[in-house]
Protein backbone atom coordinates (compact mmCIF):
# COMPACT_ATOMS: atom_id res chain seq x y z
CA UNK A 1 0.00 0.00 0.00
CA UNK A 2 2.96 2.33 0.56
CA UNK A 3 4.32 1.89 -2.96
CA UNK A 4 4.93 5.23 -4.59
CA UNK A 5 3.50 5.79 -8.04
CA UNK A 6 3.96 8.58 -10.55
CA UNK A 7 0.94 10.30 -12.10
CA UNK A 8 0.43 13.13 -14.54
CA UNK A 9 -0.36 16.69 -13.53
CA UNK A 10 -3.82 17.50 -15.00
CA UNK A 11 -3.42 21.28 -15.28
CA UNK A 12 -3.01 23.15 -18.56
CA UNK A 13 -0.27 25.61 -19.42
CA UNK A 14 -0.64 29.22 -18.23
CA UNK A 15 0.52 32.20 -20.28
CA UNK A 16 3.39 34.32 -19.08
CA UNK A 17 2.39 37.53 -17.30
CA UNK A 18 4.22 40.83 -17.79
CA UNK A 19 3.46 43.58 -15.32
CA UNK A 20 1.82 46.74 -16.66
CA UNK A 21 2.55 50.05 -14.93
CA UNK A 22 -0.13 51.82 -12.95
CA UNK A 23 -1.34 55.21 -14.16
CA UNK A 24 0.54 58.18 -12.64
CA UNK A 25 -0.82 59.34 -9.28
CA UNK A 26 -1.72 62.94 -8.38
CA UNK A 27 -0.16 64.29 -5.18
CA UNK A 28 -3.36 66.07 -4.32
CA UNK A 29 -6.81 66.04 -5.86
CA UNK A 30 -7.67 69.69 -5.14
CA UNK A 31 -8.94 71.35 -8.31
CA UNK A 32 -8.45 68.18 -10.27
CA UNK A 33 -10.92 65.86 -11.98
CA UNK A 34 -11.72 62.35 -10.80
CA UNK A 35 -13.88 60.07 -12.93
CA UNK A 36 -16.34 57.75 -11.20
CA UNK A 37 -17.17 55.06 -13.72
CA UNK A 38 -20.25 52.85 -13.54
CA UNK A 39 -19.20 49.64 -15.28
CA UNK A 40 -22.83 48.45 -15.55
CA UNK A 41 -22.72 45.90 -12.78
CA UNK A 42 -26.10 45.47 -11.08
CA UNK A 43 -27.02 48.76 -9.36
CA UNK A 44 -23.44 49.99 -9.61
CA UNK A 45 -24.83 53.27 -10.91
CA UNK A 46 -26.51 53.91 -7.54
CA UNK A 47 -23.26 53.23 -5.69
CA UNK A 48 -21.36 55.59 -7.97
CA UNK A 49 -24.01 58.26 -7.40
CA UNK A 50 -23.52 57.94 -3.64
CA UNK A 51 -19.75 58.24 -4.03
CA UNK A 52 -20.32 61.43 -6.03
CA UNK A 53 -22.51 62.69 -3.21
CA UNK A 54 -19.74 61.95 -0.74
CA UNK A 55 -17.30 64.06 -2.75
CA UNK A 56 -19.88 66.85 -2.93
CA UNK A 57 -20.30 66.78 0.85
CA UNK A 58 -16.69 66.17 1.89
CA UNK A 59 -14.39 67.16 -0.96
CA UNK A 60 -16.13 69.88 -2.98
CA UNK A 61 -12.68 70.95 -4.13
CA UNK A 62 -12.51 67.87 -6.38
CA UNK A 63 -14.24 67.92 -9.76
CA UNK A 64 -16.25 64.75 -10.16
CA UNK A 65 -17.26 63.31 -13.52
CA UNK A 66 -19.77 60.47 -13.28
CA UNK A 67 -19.78 58.27 -16.37
CA UNK A 68 -21.40 55.04 -17.44
CA UNK A 69 -19.16 52.76 -19.45
CA UNK A 70 -20.33 51.99 -22.96
CA UNK A 71 -20.96 48.34 -23.80
CA UNK A 72 -21.37 45.44 -21.40
CA UNK A 73 -19.06 45.23 -18.42
CA UNK A 74 -16.75 42.74 -20.09
CA UNK A 75 -15.89 45.22 -22.85
CA UNK A 76 -13.47 48.13 -22.93
CA UNK A 77 -14.73 51.67 -23.58
CA UNK A 78 -11.75 53.08 -25.45
CA UNK A 79 -13.32 56.51 -25.98
CA UNK A 80 -13.99 56.99 -22.29
CA UNK A 81 -10.57 55.64 -21.29
CA UNK A 82 -8.86 58.07 -23.66
CA UNK A 83 -10.83 60.94 -22.17
CA UNK A 84 -9.87 59.90 -18.64
CA UNK A 85 -6.23 59.64 -19.65
CA UNK A 86 -6.35 63.16 -21.08
CA UNK A 87 -8.45 64.97 -18.52
CA UNK A 88 -8.50 62.92 -15.35
CA UNK A 89 -6.24 62.89 -12.31
CA UNK A 90 -7.68 59.52 -11.45
CA UNK A 91 -10.56 57.16 -11.96
CA UNK A 92 -12.59 54.82 -9.80
CA UNK A 93 -14.05 51.83 -11.62
CA UNK A 94 -17.07 50.28 -9.88
CA UNK A 95 -16.64 46.55 -10.40
CA UNK A 96 -18.72 43.77 -8.86
CA UNK A 97 -22.31 42.83 -8.19
Amino acid at each position, binding site marked *: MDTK*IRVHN*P*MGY*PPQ*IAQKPLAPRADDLTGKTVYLVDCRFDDGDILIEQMANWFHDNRPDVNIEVRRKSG*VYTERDETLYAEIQQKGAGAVMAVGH
Partner: protein
Amino acid sequence: MRASTLQQGIPYLRHAFVPQPVMGRTPDQLRAYVDGPDDVTGRPFMSEVINALTRPQSAQETRPQTFERSTPRFVEPDTEENLRQLFLDKRWTDMLPIILPTEERVAAMLKGSSRSPDTVVGQMRPTSTREAWEYTVEKVAVNAVMAGARPEYFPVILALAATGASARASTTSSAASMAVVNGPIRHEIEMNWGIGAMGPYNHANATIGRAFGLLSQNLQGGSVPEVTYLGSQGNNYAYNSVTFAENEERSPWTPFHVQHGFRAAESAVSVFGGCRSTAFNLGLRARHWQDHVRNMLRGLNPHNPPTFVLDPITAQQFIDRGSFDSKEKLIQWVHDNATMPASVYWDYQLIENYVYPHALNGIEPYASKLQAASDELIPIYQLEDIHVVVVGGETNGYWRIMGCNYHGTTSVDEWR
Protein backbone atom coordinates in the same frame (compact mmCIF):
# COMPACT_ATOMS: atom_id res chain seq x y z
CA MET B 1 -10.43 40.26 -7.66
CA ARG B 2 -6.70 40.05 -6.93
CA ALA B 3 -6.37 36.84 -8.98
CA SER B 4 -8.02 38.63 -11.92
CA THR B 5 -5.81 41.69 -11.75
CA LEU B 6 -2.68 39.54 -11.50
CA GLN B 7 -3.69 37.76 -14.68
CA GLN B 8 -4.18 41.11 -16.38
CA GLY B 9 -0.63 42.10 -15.50
CA ILE B 10 -1.62 44.61 -12.83
CA PRO B 11 -1.05 42.68 -9.60
CA TYR B 12 -0.72 45.87 -7.56
CA LEU B 13 -3.88 47.53 -8.82
CA ARG B 14 -5.32 49.45 -5.90
CA HIS B 15 -8.69 48.42 -4.51
CA ALA B 16 -11.25 49.57 -1.98
CA PHE B 17 -14.22 47.41 -1.06
CA VAL B 18 -17.76 48.14 0.02
CA PRO B 19 -19.77 45.17 1.35
CA GLN B 20 -21.29 42.82 -1.19
CA PRO B 21 -23.81 42.66 -2.72
CA VAL B 22 -24.54 46.11 -4.07
CA MET B 23 -27.47 44.81 -6.10
CA GLY B 24 -30.87 45.62 -4.60
CA ARG B 25 -29.56 48.02 -1.96
CA THR B 26 -31.30 51.38 -1.57
CA PRO B 27 -29.45 54.66 -2.17
CA ASP B 28 -29.39 55.24 1.61
CA GLN B 29 -27.92 51.81 2.25
CA LEU B 30 -25.26 52.38 -0.38
CA ARG B 31 -24.45 55.80 1.07
CA ALA B 32 -23.93 54.04 4.39
CA TYR B 33 -21.52 51.69 2.61
CA VAL B 34 -19.65 54.70 1.20
CA ASP B 35 -19.51 56.41 4.60
CA GLY B 36 -18.59 53.18 6.37
CA PRO B 37 -15.46 51.06 6.62
CA ASP B 38 -13.72 49.26 3.80
CA ASP B 39 -15.03 45.70 3.91
CA VAL B 40 -11.51 44.24 3.75
CA THR B 41 -9.21 46.62 5.64
CA GLY B 42 -11.73 48.05 8.11
CA ARG B 43 -10.43 51.56 7.47
CA PRO B 44 -12.85 54.26 6.19
CA PHE B 45 -13.84 53.29 2.66
CA MET B 46 -13.46 56.74 1.12
CA SER B 47 -10.10 57.22 2.83
CA GLU B 48 -9.00 54.08 1.07
CA VAL B 49 -10.29 55.48 -2.23
CA ILE B 50 -8.48 58.81 -1.81
CA ASN B 51 -5.35 57.02 -0.68
CA ALA B 52 -5.42 54.74 -3.71
CA LEU B 53 -5.74 57.74 -6.00
CA THR B 54 -2.93 59.81 -4.44
CA ARG B 55 -0.40 57.59 -2.65
CA PRO B 56 2.96 57.69 -4.45
CA GLN B 57 3.79 54.50 -6.27
CA SER B 58 6.24 52.15 -4.62
CA ALA B 59 9.24 50.59 -6.31
CA GLN B 60 7.38 47.29 -6.35
CA GLU B 61 4.49 48.88 -8.22
CA THR B 62 6.67 50.46 -10.88
CA ARG B 63 9.42 47.88 -11.35
CA PRO B 64 8.95 45.92 -14.61
CA GLN B 65 8.38 42.30 -13.72
CA THR B 66 7.57 39.10 -15.49
CA PHE B 67 5.73 36.38 -13.66
CA GLU B 68 6.94 33.03 -14.92
CA ARG B 69 4.56 30.15 -14.49
CA SER B 70 4.69 26.60 -15.71
CA THR B 71 2.98 23.28 -15.22
CA PRO B 72 5.12 20.19 -14.66
CA ARG B 73 4.23 17.09 -16.62
CA PHE B 74 4.07 14.95 -13.49
CA VAL B 75 3.39 15.44 -9.81
CA GLU B 76 5.85 14.17 -7.22
CA PRO B 77 5.59 10.38 -6.82
CA ASP B 78 3.63 9.34 -3.74
CA THR B 79 1.36 6.65 -2.42
CA GLU B 80 -2.05 6.22 -4.02
CA GLU B 81 -3.77 7.43 -0.85
CA ASN B 82 -1.63 10.57 -0.65
CA LEU B 83 -2.09 11.30 -4.34
CA ARG B 84 -5.84 11.04 -4.02
CA GLN B 85 -5.69 13.54 -1.18
CA LEU B 86 -3.38 15.79 -3.20
CA PHE B 87 -5.83 15.86 -6.13
CA LEU B 88 -8.62 16.79 -3.72
CA ASP B 89 -6.53 19.45 -1.97
CA LYS B 90 -5.49 20.98 -5.30
CA ARG B 91 -9.15 20.99 -6.42
CA TRP B 92 -8.29 18.98 -9.51
CA THR B 93 -11.42 16.83 -9.15
CA ASP B 94 -15.19 17.27 -8.98
CA MET B 95 -14.97 15.93 -5.42
CA LEU B 96 -16.01 12.45 -6.55
CA PRO B 97 -13.40 9.66 -6.68
CA ILE B 98 -11.21 9.79 -9.78
CA ILE B 99 -8.99 7.34 -11.64
CA LEU B 100 -5.41 8.39 -10.96
CA PRO B 101 -3.74 9.32 -14.27
CA THR B 102 -0.74 6.98 -14.21
CA GLU B 103 1.66 6.92 -17.15
CA GLU B 104 0.23 3.57 -18.25
CA ARG B 105 -3.38 4.72 -18.18
CA VAL B 106 -2.64 7.95 -19.99
CA ALA B 107 -0.65 6.05 -22.62
CA ALA B 108 -3.63 3.74 -23.13
CA MET B 109 -5.98 6.71 -23.48
CA LEU B 110 -3.67 8.28 -26.07
CA LYS B 111 -4.11 5.18 -28.23
CA GLY B 112 -7.72 6.29 -28.74
CA SER B 113 -6.54 8.98 -31.16
CA SER B 114 -3.98 9.14 -33.93
CA ARG B 115 -2.98 12.64 -32.85
CA SER B 116 0.46 13.23 -31.35
CA PRO B 117 0.44 13.74 -27.55
CA ASP B 118 2.13 17.12 -27.88
CA THR B 119 -0.38 18.51 -30.40
CA VAL B 120 -1.90 21.70 -29.08
CA VAL B 121 -5.66 21.19 -28.88
CA GLY B 122 -6.73 24.69 -27.94
CA GLN B 123 -7.10 27.33 -25.27
CA MET B 124 -9.73 27.79 -22.60
CA ARG B 125 -10.64 30.34 -19.95
CA PRO B 126 -13.26 30.53 -17.18
CA THR B 127 -14.69 33.76 -18.58
CA SER B 128 -13.97 36.15 -21.41
CA THR B 129 -12.08 38.61 -19.22
CA ARG B 130 -9.61 36.08 -17.86
CA GLU B 131 -6.44 34.72 -19.41
CA ALA B 132 -6.56 31.68 -21.70
CA TRP B 133 -4.57 28.58 -20.79
CA GLU B 134 -3.28 26.18 -23.43
CA TYR B 135 -3.36 22.38 -23.53
CA THR B 136 -2.14 19.42 -25.52
CA VAL B 137 -3.62 16.07 -26.50
CA GLU B 138 -1.75 14.51 -23.58
CA LYS B 139 -3.23 16.95 -21.08
CA VAL B 140 -6.73 16.16 -22.36
CA ALA B 141 -5.94 12.44 -22.02
CA VAL B 142 -4.93 12.94 -18.39
CA ASN B 143 -8.33 14.41 -17.58
CA ALA B 144 -10.15 11.78 -19.62
CA VAL B 145 -8.47 9.08 -17.54
CA MET B 146 -9.45 10.85 -14.33
CA ALA B 147 -13.09 10.86 -15.46
CA GLY B 148 -13.08 7.10 -16.03
CA ALA B 149 -13.47 7.36 -19.80
CA ARG B 150 -12.39 4.59 -22.18
CA PRO B 151 -9.87 5.19 -25.00
CA GLU B 152 -12.56 4.72 -27.65
CA TYR B 153 -14.35 7.80 -26.27
CA PHE B 154 -11.21 9.93 -26.58
CA PRO B 155 -11.98 11.49 -30.01
CA VAL B 156 -15.26 12.89 -28.62
CA ILE B 157 -13.47 14.26 -25.57
CA LEU B 158 -10.75 15.83 -27.73
CA ALA B 159 -13.43 17.42 -29.89
CA LEU B 160 -15.07 18.88 -26.79
CA ALA B 161 -11.70 20.26 -25.65
CA ALA B 162 -11.08 21.68 -29.12
CA THR B 163 -14.21 23.83 -28.90
CA GLY B 164 -12.45 26.00 -26.31
CA ALA B 165 -15.81 26.27 -24.55
CA SER B 166 -15.49 25.80 -20.82
CA ALA B 167 -17.90 23.58 -18.93
CA ARG B 168 -16.70 25.36 -15.77
CA ALA B 169 -17.57 28.97 -16.47
CA SER B 170 -16.77 31.19 -13.51
CA THR B 171 -19.97 33.24 -13.81
CA THR B 172 -21.88 34.17 -10.67
CA SER B 173 -24.95 32.79 -12.46
CA SER B 174 -23.82 29.16 -11.97
CA ALA B 175 -23.90 28.05 -15.58
CA ALA B 176 -23.36 24.49 -16.78
CA SER B 177 -22.86 23.07 -20.27
CA MET B 178 -24.67 20.59 -22.49
CA ALA B 179 -23.04 18.34 -25.10
CA VAL B 180 -24.94 16.57 -27.88
CA VAL B 181 -23.23 13.87 -29.96
CA ASN B 182 -24.31 13.03 -33.50
CA GLY B 183 -23.23 10.59 -36.19
CA PRO B 184 -21.81 7.06 -36.34
CA ILE B 185 -19.59 7.51 -33.27
CA ARG B 186 -22.74 7.20 -31.16
CA HIS B 187 -23.05 3.55 -32.20
CA GLU B 188 -19.31 2.83 -32.11
CA ILE B 189 -18.97 3.78 -28.46
CA GLU B 190 -22.48 2.66 -27.49
CA MET B 191 -23.80 6.00 -26.31
CA ASN B 192 -27.38 6.29 -25.13
CA TRP B 193 -30.08 8.32 -26.88
CA GLY B 194 -33.00 6.29 -25.58
CA ILE B 195 -34.39 5.66 -22.10
CA GLY B 196 -32.49 7.66 -19.49
CA ALA B 197 -30.08 9.20 -22.01
CA MET B 198 -29.76 12.38 -19.97
CA GLY B 199 -29.28 10.47 -16.71
CA PRO B 200 -26.65 8.22 -15.11
CA TYR B 201 -27.40 5.09 -17.15
CA ASN B 202 -24.68 4.85 -19.77
CA HIS B 203 -20.92 4.65 -19.35
CA ALA B 204 -20.01 6.72 -22.41
CA ASN B 205 -22.55 9.48 -21.74
CA ALA B 206 -21.53 9.64 -18.09
CA THR B 207 -17.77 9.68 -18.45
CA ILE B 208 -17.52 11.83 -21.59
CA GLY B 209 -19.60 14.46 -19.83
CA ARG B 210 -17.56 14.17 -16.66
CA ALA B 211 -14.34 14.43 -18.67
CA PHE B 212 -15.66 17.64 -20.27
CA GLY B 213 -16.05 19.14 -16.81
CA LEU B 214 -12.71 17.96 -15.43
CA LEU B 215 -10.73 19.00 -18.49
CA SER B 216 -12.41 22.39 -18.40
CA GLN B 217 -11.56 23.14 -14.80
CA ASN B 218 -7.99 21.91 -15.03
CA LEU B 219 -6.97 23.01 -18.51
CA GLN B 220 -8.34 26.54 -18.10
CA GLY B 221 -6.35 27.05 -14.90
CA GLY B 222 -8.85 26.01 -12.24
CA SER B 223 -12.41 26.27 -11.03
CA VAL B 224 -11.82 27.24 -7.44
CA PRO B 225 -14.56 28.99 -5.45
CA GLU B 226 -13.79 32.69 -4.85
CA VAL B 227 -10.84 32.57 -7.26
CA THR B 228 -11.87 31.05 -10.57
CA TYR B 229 -15.46 30.13 -9.74
CA LEU B 230 -18.08 32.52 -8.43
CA GLY B 231 -21.36 30.68 -9.06
CA SER B 232 -23.52 31.77 -6.17
CA GLN B 233 -25.67 28.63 -6.03
CA GLY B 234 -23.64 26.19 -8.10
CA ASN B 235 -25.21 23.87 -10.64
CA ASN B 236 -25.80 20.13 -10.43
CA TYR B 237 -25.85 19.86 -14.22
CA ALA B 238 -22.09 20.50 -14.03
CA TYR B 239 -21.35 16.97 -12.78
CA ASN B 240 -21.53 15.58 -16.31
CA SER B 241 -22.45 18.60 -18.43
CA VAL B 242 -25.76 17.12 -19.64
CA THR B 243 -24.04 14.89 -22.21
CA PHE B 244 -26.06 12.61 -24.49
CA ALA B 245 -26.49 11.51 -28.09
CA GLU B 246 -29.30 12.69 -30.33
CA ASN B 247 -31.90 10.04 -31.19
CA GLU B 248 -31.39 10.35 -34.93
CA GLU B 249 -33.07 7.02 -35.62
CA ARG B 250 -36.43 8.01 -34.12
CA SER B 251 -36.31 11.74 -34.82
CA PRO B 252 -38.66 12.85 -37.61
CA TRP B 253 -36.29 15.68 -38.46
CA THR B 254 -32.76 16.41 -39.70
CA PRO B 255 -29.98 15.51 -37.21
CA PHE B 256 -28.56 18.46 -35.34
CA HIS B 257 -25.06 18.21 -36.81
CA VAL B 258 -26.48 18.09 -40.36
CA GLN B 259 -28.33 21.33 -39.62
CA HIS B 260 -24.92 22.81 -38.89
CA GLY B 261 -23.00 21.80 -41.98
CA PHE B 262 -21.93 18.21 -41.41
CA ARG B 263 -22.90 15.14 -43.41
CA ALA B 264 -25.01 12.52 -41.68
CA ALA B 265 -22.14 10.02 -42.00
CA GLU B 266 -19.81 12.34 -40.11
CA SER B 267 -19.55 12.39 -36.34
CA ALA B 268 -19.67 15.66 -34.42
CA VAL B 269 -20.35 17.05 -30.99
CA SER B 270 -22.30 20.23 -30.28
CA VAL B 271 -21.73 22.34 -27.20
CA PHE B 272 -24.20 24.58 -25.41
CA GLY B 273 -23.33 26.86 -22.49
CA GLY B 274 -25.25 28.80 -19.90
CA CYS B 275 -27.47 25.85 -18.92
CA ARG B 276 -29.45 26.80 -15.84
CA SER B 277 -33.17 27.04 -16.45
CA THR B 278 -35.31 24.11 -17.52
CA ALA B 279 -39.03 23.99 -18.28
CA PHE B 280 -40.81 20.70 -18.78
CA ASN B 281 -44.18 19.38 -19.87
CA LEU B 282 -46.05 16.26 -20.95
CA GLY B 283 -47.08 16.15 -24.57
CA LEU B 284 -49.05 18.75 -26.49
CA ARG B 285 -52.74 19.10 -25.65
CA ALA B 286 -55.10 19.53 -28.61
CA ARG B 287 -56.87 22.64 -27.34
CA HIS B 288 -54.26 24.81 -25.58
CA TRP B 289 -50.86 23.43 -26.61
CA GLN B 290 -49.77 26.79 -28.01
CA ASP B 291 -50.61 28.57 -24.75
CA HIS B 292 -48.80 25.90 -22.77
CA VAL B 293 -45.63 26.26 -24.84
CA ARG B 294 -45.78 30.05 -24.64
CA ASN B 295 -46.05 29.77 -20.85
CA MET B 296 -42.98 27.55 -20.76
CA LEU B 297 -41.03 30.02 -22.89
CA ARG B 298 -42.00 32.90 -20.62
CA GLY B 299 -40.64 30.91 -17.69
CA LEU B 300 -37.09 31.03 -19.00
CA ASN B 301 -34.86 34.04 -18.54
CA PRO B 302 -34.92 36.23 -21.68
CA HIS B 303 -31.12 36.14 -21.82
CA ASN B 304 -31.10 32.33 -22.09
CA PRO B 305 -32.60 31.30 -25.42
CA PRO B 306 -34.54 28.04 -25.65
CA THR B 307 -33.30 24.71 -26.93
CA PHE B 308 -36.19 22.28 -27.22
CA VAL B 309 -35.13 18.83 -25.99
CA LEU B 310 -37.87 16.56 -27.29
CA ASP B 311 -38.68 12.91 -26.81
CA PRO B 312 -39.49 11.42 -30.26
CA ILE B 313 -43.13 11.14 -29.17
CA THR B 314 -43.33 14.91 -28.64
CA ALA B 315 -41.38 15.66 -31.79
CA GLN B 316 -44.06 13.80 -33.70
CA GLN B 317 -46.75 15.69 -31.76
CA PHE B 318 -45.28 19.00 -32.89
CA ILE B 319 -45.73 17.75 -36.45
CA ASP B 320 -49.27 16.54 -35.76
CA ARG B 321 -50.41 19.66 -33.91
CA GLY B 322 -48.49 22.38 -35.69
CA SER B 323 -47.50 20.87 -39.04
CA PHE B 324 -43.86 21.53 -38.24
CA ASP B 325 -42.34 19.06 -40.67
CA SER B 326 -38.87 20.53 -40.10
CA LYS B 327 -36.99 21.82 -37.08
CA GLU B 328 -36.75 25.16 -38.85
CA LYS B 329 -40.53 25.55 -38.97
CA LEU B 330 -40.83 24.83 -35.26
CA ILE B 331 -38.00 27.28 -34.54
CA GLN B 332 -39.78 29.98 -36.54
CA TRP B 333 -42.98 29.39 -34.55
CA VAL B 334 -41.06 29.62 -31.27
CA HIS B 335 -39.47 32.88 -32.36
CA ASP B 336 -42.79 34.38 -33.36
CA ASN B 337 -44.61 33.24 -30.22
CA ALA B 338 -42.01 33.89 -27.54
CA THR B 339 -42.88 37.53 -26.95
CA MET B 340 -43.40 39.95 -24.10
CA PRO B 341 -44.15 43.67 -23.69
CA ALA B 342 -41.08 45.76 -24.48
CA SER B 343 -41.04 47.48 -21.09
CA VAL B 344 -41.07 44.13 -19.29
CA TYR B 345 -38.29 42.80 -21.52
CA TRP B 346 -35.98 45.76 -21.02
CA ASP B 347 -36.49 45.68 -17.25
CA TYR B 348 -34.95 42.21 -16.84
CA GLN B 349 -31.60 42.58 -15.05
CA LEU B 350 -29.72 40.36 -17.50
CA ILE B 351 -31.17 42.28 -20.44
CA GLU B 352 -30.11 45.51 -18.74
CA ASN B 353 -26.63 44.10 -18.25
CA TYR B 354 -25.97 42.35 -21.54
CA VAL B 355 -28.40 43.56 -24.22
CA TYR B 356 -29.28 47.15 -23.39
CA PRO B 357 -25.68 48.42 -23.88
CA HIS B 358 -25.67 46.90 -27.38
CA ALA B 359 -28.97 48.62 -28.16
CA LEU B 360 -27.53 51.94 -27.00
CA ASN B 361 -24.55 51.41 -29.26
CA GLY B 362 -26.85 50.98 -32.26
CA ILE B 363 -26.27 47.26 -32.69
CA GLU B 364 -29.16 45.54 -34.47
CA PRO B 365 -31.62 44.05 -33.89
CA TYR B 366 -31.40 45.35 -30.32
CA ALA B 367 -31.45 49.01 -31.35
CA SER B 368 -34.73 48.54 -33.23
CA LYS B 369 -36.19 46.60 -30.32
CA LEU B 370 -35.44 49.58 -28.11
CA GLN B 371 -37.67 51.74 -30.30
CA ALA B 372 -40.76 49.62 -29.54
CA ALA B 373 -43.57 51.17 -27.50
CA SER B 374 -43.58 49.98 -23.90
CA ASP B 375 -46.65 47.76 -24.32
CA GLU B 376 -45.70 46.43 -27.75
CA LEU B 377 -45.03 42.70 -27.85
CA ILE B 378 -41.49 42.08 -29.04
CA PRO B 379 -39.65 38.80 -29.76
CA ILE B 380 -37.67 37.70 -26.74
CA TYR B 381 -35.14 35.61 -28.65
CA GLN B 382 -33.19 35.82 -31.87
CA LEU B 383 -34.17 33.21 -34.45
CA GLU B 384 -30.63 31.86 -34.75
CA ASP B 385 -30.42 31.28 -30.98
CA ILE B 386 -33.35 28.83 -30.88
CA HIS B 387 -32.60 25.11 -31.35
CA VAL B 388 -34.21 21.68 -31.31
CA VAL B 389 -32.70 18.33 -30.30
CA VAL B 390 -34.44 14.95 -30.10
CA VAL B 391 -33.60 12.48 -27.32
CA GLY B 392 -35.50 9.92 -25.31
CA GLY B 393 -36.80 6.39 -25.23
CA GLU B 394 -40.50 6.97 -25.95
CA THR B 395 -41.77 5.67 -22.63
CA ASN B 396 -43.92 8.81 -22.55
CA GLY B 397 -44.18 12.22 -24.21
CA TYR B 398 -42.32 14.20 -21.56
CA TRP B 399 -40.15 16.93 -22.94
CA ARG B 400 -38.27 19.97 -21.79
CA ILE B 401 -36.87 23.30 -22.84
CA MET B 402 -33.30 24.01 -21.79
CA GLY B 403 -32.37 27.68 -21.51
CA CYS B 404 -28.87 27.74 -23.00
CA ASN B 405 -26.57 29.26 -25.60
CA TYR B 406 -25.37 27.23 -28.58
CA HIS B 407 -21.59 27.51 -28.82
CA GLY B 408 -20.90 25.42 -31.93
CA THR B 409 -20.50 21.99 -33.48
CA THR B 410 -17.07 20.37 -33.84
CA SER B 411 -15.91 17.37 -35.84
CA VAL B 412 -15.16 14.24 -33.85
CA ASP B 413 -13.63 12.54 -36.88
CA GLU B 414 -10.77 15.03 -37.00
CA TRP B 415 -9.70 13.81 -33.58
CA ARG B 416 -9.81 10.08 -34.27
